[in-house]
């Protein structure tokens, strides 16, 4: 019995006799039992609730604040949304507008948003762990909780989970979604909206099947090396190719090129006019044709001026062959049937002038270092391999190379990608938002073998793209369909007949929207037939003059024939009629001079229309809306009458406010405007 003896002596050494041992044990047990209520007493959230009560104590509205305060664990529970949010346990003042001056969290009131807290909870928008009750676990990514809080700059991503349409309050999300289409992201990555619609590109990558007729192998090689060196605004990314790779790809692209059906042979290509006088004339023709509505060019100060619908033309002279340019200017469709460029119907002299002007826009430095020996078959073969590897055919049509399927990872659920499935590059913080941002900014930092090219994007664009991608969550797919606000379905409207051919030929849809299809650079034309007088329309189609003096994007002159203008006008007048009103509602022949005079008073007095519009060019200065000097010959009386009552119903999104005029006022103002017919056309002083 030596062991128990030793144990007993150790026991006695530690606790003394059995009475004091009992006392010690009881004390220990008491302390252990006290831990439980103490642990509860020292809970983090309880501390915040006490702080809150101290904060409101002494404020003027303390009574009502403390009446609304609810102690204990709070929870918003919505099983159908999967929401179990206990955030309001610490964020006690989310609904207390009177605490607007409080700057410390967690006691700030929530800023105004269109949704109620009790409808959606917190986590659907902010992410994080709704069920957690400590600061660390609720906000950060910890061992047991994956999802961290979404940083504020990406917050609009959460709106995008339900709102598949454009929301006015989410410019960053809109910009990101536009960029996904515009930079061709969606041409390699499949991205499905939660409603199943697959996003499509809005860029227009040119077909390369006849590239040898358009440009030289040297230009292709130099462009592939660095597209932004040719045009800073180019949307084609940099594939970071080595010199031998650009050599071989250019060799292959030239080799696969076939001749296209040209005007060659029917008439000689106009000679480029290069002398100073012709150059000047060409410069003015470029301006008069409003090429800059779509094409940008660097001016003398190095500023980029012009639109972005077509490619930048600063160095166009270093790129295209003059024979090709002549053909292109005469009818772009023969080279690229899907181009957005209209058929201008230029005569040979005008084509020559424009070629002369554009050829002068060259940059000898750009091609200076590119010298290529004749291509070998091995190089062409290698070039084809590279073209397939890099996925060029995702965007461009190339002879002998098919558009690959599922070339890049699908991004439909990228906003819910689990962190453990992500390989982070060194230095990138371990959050999904940072990963997506870093991936867009510098794709190759994640590995040199990756195929994704390098884009030239501003930090704001990267944030916008990340926002749009973070909206692609699992939650967005599983939310109740009733919450979903669907995007606008793409319109496949195609006008038929002769007029339809003309509308296609002049590519009206590049700028105008009709029946949901088309661009937004120019006014929507869906109800144009109800709006304008036929005689005005015919003369406008033949010679578009400026209606809105402050706009910098203008309608070009397409040099249409009388017959063409008449066909188009007939179609527009017949088909593009609004069902909202009858043209016969107002008989303009019944207007009396007294009506006109009363309308004039209203126009200048009660409604102060001259703030935005010009009727008398000598007196009025309004510079926002269209000039109304001859509006009586342009617009129908009924249109004006209904426009003055409710402009937004006729053209949603117009800048004209809804005046909601009564019939009497609207009739009088219409009478005054209808009388603006024969005023001699004067040049408005340019501001």
């Amino acid at each position: 019995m030596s062991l128990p003896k030793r144990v007993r002596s150790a026991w006695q050494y530690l606790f003394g006799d059995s009475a004091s041992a009992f006392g010690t044990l009881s004390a220990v047990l008491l302390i252990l039992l006290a831990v439980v209520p103490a642990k509860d007493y020292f809970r983090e959230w309880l501390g915040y609730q006490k702080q809150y009560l101290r904060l409101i104590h002494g404020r003027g509205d303390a009574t009502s604040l403390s009446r609304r305060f609810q102690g204990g664990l709070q929870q918003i529970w919505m099983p159908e949304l999967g929401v179990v949010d206990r955030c309001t346990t610490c964020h006690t003042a989310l609904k207390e507008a009177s605490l607007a001056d409080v700057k410390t969290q967690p006691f700030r009131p929530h800023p105004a948003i269109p949704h109620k807290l009790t409808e959606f909870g917190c986590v659907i928008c902010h992410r994080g762990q709704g069920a957690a009750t400590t600061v660390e676990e609720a906000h950060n990514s910890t061992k047991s909780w994956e999802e961290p809080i979404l940083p504020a700059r990406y917050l609009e991503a959460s709106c995008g989970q339900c709102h598949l349409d454009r929301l006015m309050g989410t410019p960053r999300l809109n910009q990101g979604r536009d960029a996904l289409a515009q930079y061709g992201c969606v041409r390699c990555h499949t991205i499905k909206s939660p409603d199943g619609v697959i996003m499509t590109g809005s860029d227009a990558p040119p077909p390369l099947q006849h590239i040898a007729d358009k440009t030289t192998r040297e230009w292709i090689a130099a462009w592939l090396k660095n597209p932004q060196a040719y045009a800073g605004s180019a949307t084609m990314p940099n594939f970071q190719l080595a010199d031998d790779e650009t050599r071989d790809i250019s060799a292959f692209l030239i080799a696969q090129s076939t001749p296209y059906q040209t005007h060659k042979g029917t008439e000689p290509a106009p000679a480029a006019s290069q002398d100073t006088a012709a150059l000047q004339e060409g410069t003015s023709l470029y301006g008069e044709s409003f090429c800059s509505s779509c094409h940008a060019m660097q001016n003398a100060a190095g500023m980029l001026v012009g639109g972005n619908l077509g490619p930048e033309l600063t160095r166009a002279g270093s790129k295209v062959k003059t024979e090709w340019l002549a053909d292109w200017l005469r009818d772009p469709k023969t080279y690229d049937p899907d181009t957005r460029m209209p058929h201008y119907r230029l005569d040979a002299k005008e084509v020559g002038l424009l070629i002369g002007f554009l050829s002068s826009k060259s940059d000898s430095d750009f091609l200076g270092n590119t010298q290529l020996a004749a291509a070998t078959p091995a190089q062409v073969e290698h070039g084809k391999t590279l073209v397939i590897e890099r996925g060029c055919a995702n965007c461009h049509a190339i002879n002998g190379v098919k558009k690959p399927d599922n070339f890049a990872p699908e991004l439909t659920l990228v906003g819910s990608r689990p962190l453990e499935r992500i390989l982070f590059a060194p230095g990138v913080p371990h959050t999904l938002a940072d990963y997506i941002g870093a991936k867009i900014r510098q794709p190759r930092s994640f590995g040199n073998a990756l195929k994704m090219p390098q884009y030239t994007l501003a930090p704001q664009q990267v944030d916008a793209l990340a926002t749009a991608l973070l909206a692609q969550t699992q939650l967005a797919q599983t939310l109740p369909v009733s919450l979903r606000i669907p995007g606008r379905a793409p319109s496949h409207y195609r006008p038929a007949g002769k007029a339809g051919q003309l509308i296609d030929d002049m590519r009206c849809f590049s700028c105008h929207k009709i029946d949901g299809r088309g661009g937004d650079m120019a006014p929507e034309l869906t109800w144009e037939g109800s709006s304008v007088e036929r005689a005005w329309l015919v003369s406008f189609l033949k010679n578009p003059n400026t209606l809105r003096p402050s706009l910098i994007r203008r309608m070009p002159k397409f040099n249409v024939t009388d017959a063409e203008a008449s066909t188009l006008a007939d179609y527009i007048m017949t088909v593009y009629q609004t069902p909202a009103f009858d043209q016969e509602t107002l008989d303009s022949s019944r207007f009396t001079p007294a009506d006109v005079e009363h309308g004039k008073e209203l126009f200048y007095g009660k409604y102060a229309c001259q703030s935005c519009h010009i009727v008398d060019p000598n007196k009025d200065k309004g510079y926002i809306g269209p000039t109304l000097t001859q509006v009586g010959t342009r617009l129908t009386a009924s249109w004006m009458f209904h426009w003055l009552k409710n402009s937004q119903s006729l053209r949603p999104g117009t800048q004209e406010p809804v005046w909601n005029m009564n019939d009497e006022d609207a009739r009088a103002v219409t009478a005054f405007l209808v009388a603006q017919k024969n005023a001699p056309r004067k040049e408005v002083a340019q501001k």
Partner: protein
Amino acid sequence: MNRAWLGSIVLALGMTSACSRHTAVPAEAPPKAFGAALVLVSGDKQAAGVGSALDQPVVVQVNDEKGTAVAGALVRFAGAGGVIFDPDRGLTGSDGQFTTNVSLGGVHGLYRIVAATKNSSGKAAEIRIDEIALGYQETLGKQVSDIHCVRCHDSESTPERVSNHDNLIAQAHSFTDGAILNAMSDADLAAIIGHGGAALGKSAEMPPYGNTLTKPEIDALIGLLRALADPPYRPQGIFYAGK
């Protein structure tokens, strides 16, 4: 016994310190020169979405007593509420200027950032620079304003947008004009926006937008005015400042 305790304490401390995330403080370049004053060159009063980078960098200049630019002086930036500077400190260039890119914090409202430099005797000279973070409501207000308001209310023209401000008889107030707009209540502003100038005895050149904009849009516009106001807007009425 005591040694073992000491050993385990050292071990425990070592382990906890290894667990905590240590970011190496970058070696700071010592100032090569000292200035007496800081002046703002550009970049104040910018508005950006919460958590986002400002469009333009903030540029400050260090001057000596005579007002000439000092190259090589150390400038430090600091700001509360999660403001991030890239970089937050550095030496002024040959023109005496220091440029930093600023990202605002995640809460909407006014952010006051401080740029500081020290003179040769260690006395600090500093300037305060205000920037504005726009929340959801203010962002929506800005979108509405860009479509319907700025053409008349902003006297500056841009290449894409010609100002109509000077074509009007009544001078439309700039949205940053806190001296005038702060004195107007939310209800007054909502009335003018909704019913137009004429209905309230002001110029008819301000059209009524009550049938064009929704109530949330008008509220958002007012939110934007309050956010942009200079001097800053302080809400009227029952208001109890915290300690």
